[in-house]
């Protein structure tokens, strides 16, 4: 019964928090409207939402998010340095990363993280061969980049979603 009423508890909680945060005030009125939205919106969008894997390790997801955030800051610095330095010394490259992930939703998260961390943009996720095509701003060593993406990002994501 409760599952049918709230098909995605995590989505409902996120919507509720987002509503309160967007309104920037904690009052009975905003909370009640937020509660109503958190109940109805997952029901309305349910047909469009793919049945992805469930988040099984929330604690790990949190520490992983922190790690990605620090990576973004650190790598931003190094990319900024390269951008103002001599351009000719850069070695931009297309790198193909073979994936172990077999879930479109999880692959999308991985691709987004690769795009957000400076120096790499994900160009394409090939769902026939499960290859992530990445463009790197400066990658003299392709193997090192593939290794970094696989071990620093893909492995923890697979553990978080248990897939």
């Amino acid at each position, binding site marked *: 019964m409760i599952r049918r009423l709230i098909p995605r508890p995590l989505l409902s909680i996120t919507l509720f928090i987002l509503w309160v945060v967007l309104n*920037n005030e904690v009052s009975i009125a905003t909370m009640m409207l937020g509660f109503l939205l958190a109940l109805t919106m997952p029901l309305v969008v349910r047909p469009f939402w793919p049945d992805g894997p469930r988040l099984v390790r929330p604690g790990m997801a949190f520490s992983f998010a922190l790690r990605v955030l620090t990576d973004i800051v650190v790598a931003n610095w190094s*990319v*900024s340095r390269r951008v103002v330095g001599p*351009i000719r010394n850069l070695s931009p490259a297309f790198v193909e990363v073979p994936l172990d992930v077999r879930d479109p939703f999880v692959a999308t998260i991985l*691709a987004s993280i690769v*795009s*957000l961390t400076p120096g790499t943009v994900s*160009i394409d996720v090939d769902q026939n061969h499960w290859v992530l095509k990445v*463009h790197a701003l400066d990658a003299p060593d392709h193997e090192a980049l593939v290794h970094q993406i696989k071990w620093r990002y893909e492995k923890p994501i697979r553990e978080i979603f248990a897939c």
Partner: protein
Amino acid sequence: MSAFIEIMVSALILLGSAFALLGSIGLARLPDFFTRLHGPTKATTLGVGAMVLASAVYFTATQPGFSLHEIAVMVFLFITAPVSAHLLAKAALHRLSARPDTHASELGK
């Protein structure tokens, strides 16, 4: 507003504009489309992130209660930036493969 908060807000705004500037410099200096893509997607996330954080600190300090909707701005920014970069990159890749003569030389750069 105490001096500490003032310094913190100014530092965050300066940091944010510095990264936005660096992103623009990258956009102007880098030689081809795919390397140029790196500038705006990266420096802007941190640039806008720092400025938005400055706004959150400022309004939390000057107004009653916490100002948290800046966090929502940041979350949406971090979700949408990779999607737009991905679409741009895909479009560019399609254009390249439509013109096979330029394909190899531009990809190899």
